[in-house]
C-alpha cells in the first residue's frame, strides 16, 4: 500500500492551484430552477406559504377572538351578521367572527396535513423500502398489507377507533396518517426496486458498503423526489379528509374552529340566505387543496428524473 501511496503523491506533486470554481449544481438546485419557471407551481407555493403564515401568526392577523361570542357584548345584531366592514366574512349564529375562525382554521388543517404526512411518511417509507430492498416473503406480506388498507373503508375504520377513544386532534391525524401510508409505500417500493438494480448500488456493494449504508446513502436519496410529490399531493386530500371527518362529527370537536365543522354548522343556513357561514370556510379548503395540488404537479415536473441529464 505504501508503494501505491508514494506513487499517488508524486503524481500529484505538480498539482496546479485550482482557481476558485463554483460549487456544483445539485439536482435539487436544478429542480428549484425549473420549479421557479412554472407559474402555476409558484402560485401554489404562494398559496401554501400564505396559509402557513396565517396559521403561524393567527393571533396577530385575526381581527377577533375566534371563540368569543359577540352576542354577549353586542347583542342580537352580532348574530348571523352579513359580511361588512367590521366582519369581512360576517358572523355566525353565536356572533363569532367567521374571518377569524377561518384564519384559525388554517392551524387545524395544516397541522393535520403535516402531522398525518409525517405519520404516513414514517410508516410508508420504512415498509416500502424494506419491501423493495429485501423482496421475497417480506415483500409479499407488505404488498398484501398495502392492498388490504387500500380496500378497507376508511370512515368505517375511523368510526371503529372513535368507538373506543374520544375524538381528538391526535386521533384524527394518526388515523389519517395510518390510512394514507400505502400510497407512499407503493411509490417507495417501486423506486427502490428499480434503484437497487442500478450499477451505482452495485458499485457501492463492490466497495464493501453494508445494507444500511446502501439504503440510506444510495437508495433513499434517489427516492425522495417522487415521495415529495406524493406527499404534497396527498396533503390536499388529507385536508379534505379531515374536513369530511369533522363534518360528520368524528374529527376536531367544538368549539375549536375547524373548516369542516364550520361548514357543517353553517349548512342549515345556506338556503335561508346566511351563506357566509359555510361558504368562506369552503373556499378556504378549496384554495388550500388547490395550492397543494398546483405545487405537487409542479414538483412532479421539476423533479422528473428524466430531466436529470
Amino acid at each position: 500500500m505504501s508503494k501505491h501511496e508514494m506513487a499517488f503523491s508524486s503524481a500529484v506533486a505538480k498539482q496546479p492551484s485550482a482557481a476558485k470554481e463554483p460549487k456544483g449544481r445539485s439536482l435539487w438546485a436544478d429542480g428549484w430552477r425549473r420549479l421557479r419557471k412554472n407559474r402555476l407551481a409558484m402560485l401554489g407555493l404562494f398559496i401554501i406559504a400564505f396559509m402557513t403564515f396565517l396559521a403561524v401568526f393567527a393571533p396577530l392577523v385575526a381581527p377577533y377572538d375566534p371563540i368569543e361570542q359577540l352576542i354577549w357584548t353586542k347583542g342580537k345584531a352580532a348574530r348571523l351578521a352579513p359580511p361588512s366592514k367590521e366582519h369581512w366574512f360576517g358572523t355566525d349564529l353565536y356572533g363569532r367572527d367567521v374571518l377569524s375562525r377561518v384564519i384559525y382554521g388554517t392551524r387545524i388543517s395544516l397541522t393535520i396535513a403535516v402531522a398525518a404526512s409525517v405519520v404516513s411518511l414514517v410508516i410508508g417509507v420504512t415498509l416500502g423500502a424494506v419491501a423493495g430492498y429485501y423482496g421475497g416473503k417480506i415483500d409479499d406480506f407488505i404488498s398484501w398489507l398495502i392492498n388490504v388498507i387500500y380496500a378497507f373503508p376508511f370512515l368505517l375504520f375511523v368510526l371503529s377507533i372513535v368507538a373506543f377513544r374520544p375524538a381528538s386532534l391526535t386521533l384524527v391525524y394518526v388515523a389519517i396518517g395510518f390510512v394514507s401510508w400505502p400510497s407512499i409505500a407503493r411509490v417507495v417500493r417501486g423506486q427502490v426496486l428499480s434503484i437497487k438494480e442500478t450499477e451505482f448500488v452495485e458499485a457501492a456493494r463492490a466497495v464493501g458498503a453494508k445494507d444500511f449504508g446502501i439504503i440510506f446513502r444510495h437508495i433513499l436519496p434517489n427516492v425522495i423526489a417522487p415521495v415529495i410529490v406524493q406527499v404534497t399531493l396527498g396533503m390536499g386530500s388529507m385536508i379534505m379528509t379531515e374536513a369530511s371527518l369533522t363534518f360528520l362529527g368524528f374529527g376536531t370537536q367544538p368549539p375549536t374552529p375547524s373548516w369542516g365543522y364550520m361548514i357543517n354548522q353553517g349548512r342549515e343556513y345556506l338556503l335561508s340566505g346566511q351563506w357566509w357561514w359555510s361558504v368562506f370556510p369552503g373556499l378556504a379548503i378549496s384554495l388550500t387543496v388547490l395550492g397543494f395540488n398546483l405545487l405537487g404537479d409542479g414538483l412532479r415536473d421539476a423533479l422528473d428524473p428524466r430531466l436529470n441529464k
Partner: protein
Amino acid sequence: MGAAPLLEVKNLVKHFPIYKGWLLSRQVGSVKAVDGVTFTINRGETLGLVGESGCGKSTTGRLILRLIEPTSGEVWFEGNNVLSLDREQMRALRKDMQIIFQDPYASLNPRMTVGDIIGEPLRIHGIASGREREKRVKELLEVVGLSSYHARRYPHEFSGGQRQRIGVARALAVNPKLIVCDEPVSALDVSIQAQVINLLQDLQEQYGLTYLFIAHDLSVVKHISDRVAVMYLGKIVELTDKNSLYQNPLHPYTKALLSAIPIPDPTLVRERTLLEGDVPSPINPPSGCRFHTRCPVAEEICKHQEPAFEDVGGGHYVACHLVKKSQ
C-alpha cells in the same frame, strides 16, 4: 509462468433459477448464464474476456467479486478461496478487487458529489477521513486526468468520458490489485474510448494493476489484452495469448468472430465465415458442443459429446473435437 497466478477461477457455475406460479411457486428451470468456466489471471496481466451479449461474460466478472453468488465452483485470489469467506472477510477483500462498469450514467449516484462518490470506499474501509480524505480524493481525480475542483460537482455535470474517469477513480481509491473492467468503453464515443483505454493502460503500468477486461469488441480487446478468452453460451471455448488468438484461432467460433472485425481497407478481399441463426437459449443449451448448432464444420460427435477444454500446446486452450482430431 513460475509465480502463482493472482486469480484462479475453477469450474465456476451460475444458474439463475426460473420460478413459476404465485402461491405455490416452484422452480421450472434455470438460465445457465455461466456453466463451468475455468481460467487464471497472472499478476500485472490483462485477460480479455470476449463474447456476444448474453454469453455470461459480465456475470462471470460479477461472480468473481461475489456481487452475484455463484451456484458452484471455486475462485482463488492470492491463495484464498473467495467463496468461503464470511461477510466481514469479504468486505475486507473488496479492497483488493474492484470493478469498473459499462454505463457511466448509471454507475454514479446522481445525488452524491463526485468527492463523496470517490471518497466512499475510503470512508467504508477507514482508509482516510476528514481533510486526509479530501486530499486523497483530489489526488485520485488528478490521477485519472480530472481536476481537483471537480470533487464538489455532481455527476450530471460531466460528459460520458469524464464520468467513466470518475468510475475509475472510485475503483482506484482502495489501491486494488485486480480490477474487473466490465465493458468500460462500450458506451463511449469512439474518440473517447481510446482516451479511457490509454488511461487504464497507464494506471496498470503505474500501479501494477491486473485487469479482467470484459468486452464484445475484439479490436479493443486486442489492443489492451495479454491473453484473451472467448466465451460462448456460458463456457470458454478458447483461451490463449493475444497473438496466437488473432493469428491462429483454432475454434470455429473464434474464427467467425475474428472474420467479423471490419478492416479499414476497402480493397482487401477476405474469406468471411458468417454465422447463421441466433445464439441458442441459455435456459436449454444444445447438447454436446454448445456451438454445434451454428458451427460450419460440426460433425456427428459434436452433437453428443461435450469437448474438453484442453491445452493443445503452449498454453493455447481450446474446447473443440475437430482441433483435437486434426492434431
